[in-house]
C-alpha cells in the first residue's frame, strides 16, 4: 500500500509540464484563437515526447505505460489547455484499436475522433483520420457539419449514430476528469497570481480576507478531488471491479473542483475576469465543456447512486481498498 507516484511517473509529469510551459503558452492560445487552427508544432512535440505511444506496448514500439501515466499526462494537458486531439487519440482510443493503428498513433500518423451517444457532438472530426464509434472504427466523414461551442479552441461536429461502448465512455470520462483537475489547478494559480499583484485601497487584493478565503476554499476542493482521480486511474489500470464507480466519482469531484475554481477565479479578477483579454476564459470555457462531456455530473452521480444506494455495493471504512474490489 503506497499512494505515491513512482520516480518515473514524477519525471514524466515534469517533462510534459516543462515542455508545455515553454511551448504552449497563453500567447499560443491567443494566436490559435485568432487563426482558428490547430498547432502542428504542439502535436509533433507531444508525439516526439512519446505521448502518442504512451499506452502502446513496448513490443510495438510504444512506451508501454498505463492509465495512471495517461491521467498524469492528461492533467498536464488540462493545465496547459492543449486542444490538439492528442488526449482522445493517444490516451483514450489507443487500447481499443488494433496493433497497426496503435503503431500509427505512436508515430503521430493517425488521429482518432470518438463517437458515443452520451455526447450530442463529436470533437475534432475535421482533423480525424478515423472515428471510433461503438465497437467499430469508421473512416472519418468528408465535410462534417460544425457545431457552435463557447470554447474558442474546441472544434465540435454533429454526432454519428452508434452504439454505446462502456469502455470508451469510462476511459474518456477518466481522461476528461484529469484534464478538469489540471484546468482547476491552473485557474487557482491564475487567480492567486492576480491577487498578489492587483492593488486596491493601496494593497494587494490578496491581502483581503474575503479573497483569501475564496481561494483557500478552492484549494480544499482540489486537494480532495486529486486522490479520487488517482484511485480511479489505478482501478482502471488494474481493471478493478469498481472501476466505473471510481471513475464516476472522479468525474464528479473534478467537475466540482473545476467549476468552483472557474467561478472563484473570475470573481477574484473582477471586471478583468469578465473580459476576453484575460487568459482565464480559455480554461473556464474548457471546464464548462468537459463538465458536460462524457457524462455530466448528474449522469455520473446516478451511476454512483445505483451502486451505493440502489445496489448492494459494500460500503464502510473497511472497503476502501478491499482486495476483492481491486481485481475485476
Amino acid at each position, binding site marked *: 500500500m*503506497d499512494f*505515491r507516484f513512482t520516480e518515473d511517473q514524477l519525471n514524466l509529469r515534469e517533462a510534459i509540464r516543462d515542455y508545455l510551459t515553454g511551448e504552449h503558452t497563453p500567447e499560443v492560445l491567443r494566436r490559435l484563437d485568432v487563426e482558428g487552427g490547430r498547432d502542428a508544432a504542439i502535436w509533433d512535440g507531444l508525439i516526439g515526447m512519446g505521448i502518442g505511444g504512451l499506452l502502446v506496448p513496448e513490443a510495438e514500439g510504444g512506451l508501454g505505460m498505463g492509465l495512471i501515466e495517461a491521467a498524469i499526462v492528461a492533467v498536464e494537458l488540462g493545465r496547459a489547455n492543449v486542444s490538439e486531439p492528442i488526449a482522445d487519440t493517444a490516451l483514450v482510443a489507443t487500447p481499443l484499436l488494433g496493433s497497426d493503428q496503435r503503431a500509427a498513433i505512436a508515430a503521430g500518423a493517425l488521429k482518432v475522433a470518438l463517437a458515443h451517444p452520451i455526447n450530442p457532438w463529436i470533437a475534432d472530426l475535421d482533423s480525424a483520420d478515423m472515428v471510433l464509434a461503438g465497437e467499430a472504427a469508421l473512416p472519418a466523414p468528408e465535410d462534417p457539419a460544425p457545431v457552435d461551442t463557447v470554447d474558442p479552441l474546441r472544434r465540435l461536429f454533429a454526432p454519428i449514430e452508434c452504439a454505446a461502448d462502456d469502455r470508451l465512455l469510462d476511459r474518456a470520462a477518466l481522461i476528461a476528469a484529469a484534464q478538469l483537475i489540471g484546468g482547476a489547478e491552473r485557474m487557482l494559480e491564475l487567480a492567486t497570481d492576480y491577487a498578489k499583484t492587483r492593488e486596491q485601497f493601496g494593497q494587494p487584493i*490578496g491581502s483581503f480576507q474575503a479573497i483569501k478565503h475564496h*481561494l483557500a476554499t478552492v484549494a480544499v476542493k482540489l486537494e*480532495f478531488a486529486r486522490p479520487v482521480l488517482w484511485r480511479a486511474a489505478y482501478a482502471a489500470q488494474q481493471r478493478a471491479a469498481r472501476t466505473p464507480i471510481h471513475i464516476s466519482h472522479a468525474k464528479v469531484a473534478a467537475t466540482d473542483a473545476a467549476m468552483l475554481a472557474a467561478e472563484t477565479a473570475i470573481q477574484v479578477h473582477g471586471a478583468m475576469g469578465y473580459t476576453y483579454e484575460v487568459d482565464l476564459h480559455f480554461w473556464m470555457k474548457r471546464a464548462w465543456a468537459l463538465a458536460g462531456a462524457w457524462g455530466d455530473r448528474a449522469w455520473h452521480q446516478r451511476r454512483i447512486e445505483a451502486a*451505493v444506494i440502489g445496489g448492494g455495493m459494500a460500503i464502510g*471504512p473497511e472497503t476502501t481498498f478491499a482486495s476483492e474490489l481491486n481485481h475485476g
Partner: protein
Amino acid sequence: MDLEYTPEQNAFRAEVRAWMEAHVPKTPLKTLEGREGYDQHVEWERELASGNWGMVTWPEAYGGRGLDLIRWLIFEEEYYRAGAPLRANQNGIFLLGPTIMEYGTDEQKARFLTPMAKGEVIWAQAWSEPNAGSDMAAIRSRAVRDGDHYVISGQKTWSSRAAFADWCFGIFRTDSESKRHKGLSFILLPLDSPGVTIRPIRQLHGETGFAEIFFDEVRVPVENRIAGEGEGWNVAMATAGFERGLMLRSPARFQAAAKRLVALYKEHAATASPAAHEAVLQAWMDAEAYALNTYSVAATVIAGGHIGAEASLNKIFWSELDRAAHRAAMSLLGATAELRTLPDGAANIWQEGYIFSLSGPIYAGSNEIQRNIIAERLLGLPR
C-alpha cells in the same frame, strides 16, 4: 502507486477485527460528556490497553506496537467498523503523545507515554482563555519560576474533558515581560493539584463536555515543562499540526457515518427531499475522498515527508463534511429530528452527531483561521 494491502496487512486487519468483535461493548456506552459515561469510556480505554491496542503506532517501550501509519489506518477502519466507543483519551494519544515523542526528554517519555497508552491517565488540553481563543498568542495565564517549581495563576476555558480528566497540558506565560508568541511555555500538571478549581460548562446538548480551569498559585515542578522555557508556542504549533493533521479525525469515522447515513436514507427515501438525496451521495463521496487523501498523506509521511500547513486543508474538509452529513440526516428525519429519544426508545444519535458536528469548524483552530493559513502559507498571499 500500489493500492493493495500486503498479506501481512490483511492478517493484521483480521487480528484487529477478531479482537474488536470479541471486545467491543454490545450496548452503546453513555455519553462521554457525563460522569457515568466518562467512567465507562475510561474502562474501555483500559480494555483496549489490555489487548495492547492503546496506540498502535507508538514504540513497544511506551505501550504501543511500533506499527506504521497504514496499519494505524487499518486499525481505525476496524475500530469504526465494529462501532467501538469514542476515545476518552484522544487529547493524550493524538495530541500530547506525539508532542512528547517529538519534544520530550527520555525521562518524560517514560513517565507520560506509557500511562497514556494504557488509559491510566486521561488528559485535557488547557490552551484557550476567555480572551485568547483564535488569538492564542494573547494568553495571559502566568507560570512564575520559584526555584525548581513554577507557580501558576490564571484561567483557562473550553477545556474538553477537564471536568473528569486527570492531567492537563497547558500553555502559560513564563516571562511576564513578554508579548504575544514569545515567553510562553508548555507545562503539564495534575488537575487535582492544590489551587486548581474546575468549573464545568454545559454544552449545547446540555452535558458538561468542557470546563473552565482556574489556577490559584498552583505549584508545578519544572521538570513538567516540555521543551525549553519560552519555547511553548513552537511546541503548541506542532501539537496543533497533529490535531488538524492526520490523526485526530481518522477517515474511518466519517466512512462509518456515511454508511449509516445511506441506511437512514433508504428508510426515508419516500419522504426525502432532493437536497437530502444529493447530500447523502456527497457524504459518501467526501468520506471516500477523505480516506483516499489520508492514505496519500500517510504514504508521504512514511517516506519521510512532513505535513505542514496542509493540515489546514484536512481540518476544513473533515469538519465541513461531517456537518453536511449530519445536516442531511436531520433533514431525512423530518419531524422526528427534534426528538432526543426516538419512538423505538433509542437515543437520537443523528441529533447528537449534528450538534457535535457544529463544533468541528470551531475547535482545533476555527475554519476561518485555517483558511487564513492556507491562503498565506500554501498559496503565498500577503498577510
